[in-house]
């Protein structure tokens, strides 16, 4: 029999409804699995008491026939979402001990719908990273391992980042689904590395209120889960209008779950030729071709398209995102919350606090941002990058105007890499991880990563689907076709338990 924590979210929901098991049993199964998996360091904080209390409430609701959409569903929360009375660190030492007196809009929506909080999930510091190695609370280890000569290698792999804790916890069955955020690929890249499904919805679909800010014009929350359907269910609860975020769209939330089984018959899928980058492995190329064939077999038309400004998205991002970060992170000054380190005067206190509280990658990005916004450089760097952003968005608009419904690309240039393998000398080496995902944030579009197969070493590889603004439904429909055709990836063994 499948243990309760190995069910999909949809199966668990239906099982609770049918009273096959209780919400308390379902939650306890996850708490037990979490305890055995502490070596993965996916959770930075477990909240078992709160979880069991919430599960109890869920059981009462179910008994009274008052079950809400996510009644009794245990979830992990990326530690970038502020949670009332529960420590929120953003993966940084500078926020150690911070206990918000408010609840982020996204998590509020999940609790409103009856979900259960298991704990807070590890991440790259302030969501800046692609491997979860910049967290002040230690690396998260992927539950996946390479196959070498028919047996599992001992080498530790990264789960991707920044939502590395979310992806690892979902893959290792330590929650039924998790919240995540994506500024340049932080949902889709870890989902691809761990054989899970992740969607970054259209900018404005989820409220950013109460989520620790990195780059405000790019940040968007979304779910990571084990199936396309589970992602659709979660996004349906996370999304929605919110007056407190001035960029949150005043749009009704569609029935995402209904869109999952819609199919792709009659849709036109674009294959952007600029994503065929130099040095792309034959495996990734073959996966991409297979994905296109799966959609074609299901009745879609597949057509090559051109998005000519694609190569400039990554460098433009590394101006725009650090610029916004340098401004957003100015608030960590040792006065209102978090760490304070004394200095000889108030400026010395600020400088010492920020030197001690921020890690290397965060300091680097703040300094780049400060530089590109400083007098004399603003036009040459920041304004030029924002103009290039306009060009990137126009490329997509032209493709969609020519009749393209969704775009298919690889999610990452390769499968997961080992701990400490990338970016130690040159930060740009790590930044290249996001080459396929970053255009989507720059243009504010929805993007979804779905597992489509394994590489020669037995590691998952993902494909990305990019949609029109506020058309996540087409992405769910197309992703389900790929999931059905490719089959769900399966972890070889629970070596950590």
């Amino acid at each position: 029999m499948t243990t309760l924590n190995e069910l999909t979210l949809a199966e668990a929901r239906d099982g609770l409804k049918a009273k096959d098991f209780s919400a308390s049993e379902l939650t306890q199964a996850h708490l037990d699995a979490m305890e055995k998996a502490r070596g993965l360091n996916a959770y930075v904080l477990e909240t078992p008491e709160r979880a069991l209390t919430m599960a109890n409430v869920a059981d009462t609701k179910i008994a009274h026939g008052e079950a809400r959409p996510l009644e009794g569903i245990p979830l992990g929360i990326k530690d970038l979402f502020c949670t009332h009375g529960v420590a929120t660190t953003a993966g940084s030492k500078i926020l150690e001990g911070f206990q918000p007196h408010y609840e982020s809009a996204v998590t509020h929506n999940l609790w409103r719908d009856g979900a259960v909080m298991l704990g807070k999930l590890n991440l790259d510091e302030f969501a800046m990273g692609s491997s979860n190695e910049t967290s002040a609370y230690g690396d998260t280890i992927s539950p996946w391992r390479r196959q070498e000569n028919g047996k599992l290698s001992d080498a530790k792999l990264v789960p991707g980042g920044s939502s590395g804790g979310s992806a690892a916890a979902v893959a290792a069955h330590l929650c039924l689904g998790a919240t995540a955020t994506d500024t340049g690929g932080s949902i889709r890249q870890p989902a691809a590395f761990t054989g899970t499904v992740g969607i970054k919805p259209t900018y404005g679909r989820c409220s950013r209120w109460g989520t620790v800010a990195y780059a405000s014009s790019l940040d968007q929350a979304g779910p990571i889960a084990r199936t396309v359907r589970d992602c659709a269910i979660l996004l349906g609860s996370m999304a929605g209008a919110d007056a407190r975020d001035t960029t949150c769209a005043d749009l009704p939330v569609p029935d995402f779950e209904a869109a999952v089984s819609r199919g792709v018959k009659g849709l036109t899928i674009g294959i952007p030729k600029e994503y065929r980058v130099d040095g792309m492995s034959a495996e990734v190329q073959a996966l991409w071709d297979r994905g296109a064939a799966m959609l074609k077999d299901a009745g879609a038309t597949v057509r090559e398209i051109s998005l000519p400004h694609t190569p400039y998205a990554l460098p433009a991002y590394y101006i725009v995102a650090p610029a916004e970060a340098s401004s957003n992170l100015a608030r960590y000054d040792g006065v209102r919350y978090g760490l304070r380190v004394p200095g000889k005067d108030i400026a010395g206190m600020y400088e010492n606090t920020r030197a001690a509280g921020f890690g290397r990658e965060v300091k680097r990005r703040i300094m780049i941002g400060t530089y590109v916004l400083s007098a004399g450089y603003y036009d040459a760097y920041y304004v030029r990058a924002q103009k290039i952003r306009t060009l990137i968005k126009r490329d997509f608009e032209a493709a969609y105007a020519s009749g393209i419904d969704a775009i298919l690309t690889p999610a990452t240039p390769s499968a997961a890499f080992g701990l400490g393998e990338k970016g130690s000398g040159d930060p740009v080496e790590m930044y290249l991880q996001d080459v396929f995902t970053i255009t989507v944030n720059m243009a504010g579009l929805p993007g979804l990563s779905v597992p489509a197969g394994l590489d020669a070493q037995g590691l998952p590889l993902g494909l990305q689907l990019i949609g029109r603004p506020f058309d996540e439904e087409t992405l769910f429909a197309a992703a389900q076709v790929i999931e059905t055709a490719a089959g769900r990836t399966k972890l070889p063994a629970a070596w950590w338990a």
Partner: protein
Amino acid sequence: MSVDATTVRRIAHLARIAVGEDEVAPLQGELNAILAFVEQLGAVDVTGVEPMTSVTPMAMKKRVDAVTDGGYAGDIVSNAPETEDHYFLVPKVVE
């Protein structure tokens, strides 16, 4: 464009991050690697292109200019390292 050690110290001060002497050279190398990477943007013709100011075509939401929140100073200061009577305490700024 690339930055020299003096510029690294100046940026660090503008960003209010204390940087030790031994950190300047590695930071200079890393910042220059990033600046060299973004240099390729110079090749794009941006004549007549408007810089993006809003990623989705929507008007900024507005609300009535009224007090809609407040009355919980205790909560606001509860996470501060040093407070007194609902004020944040900082080192002396004016003699």
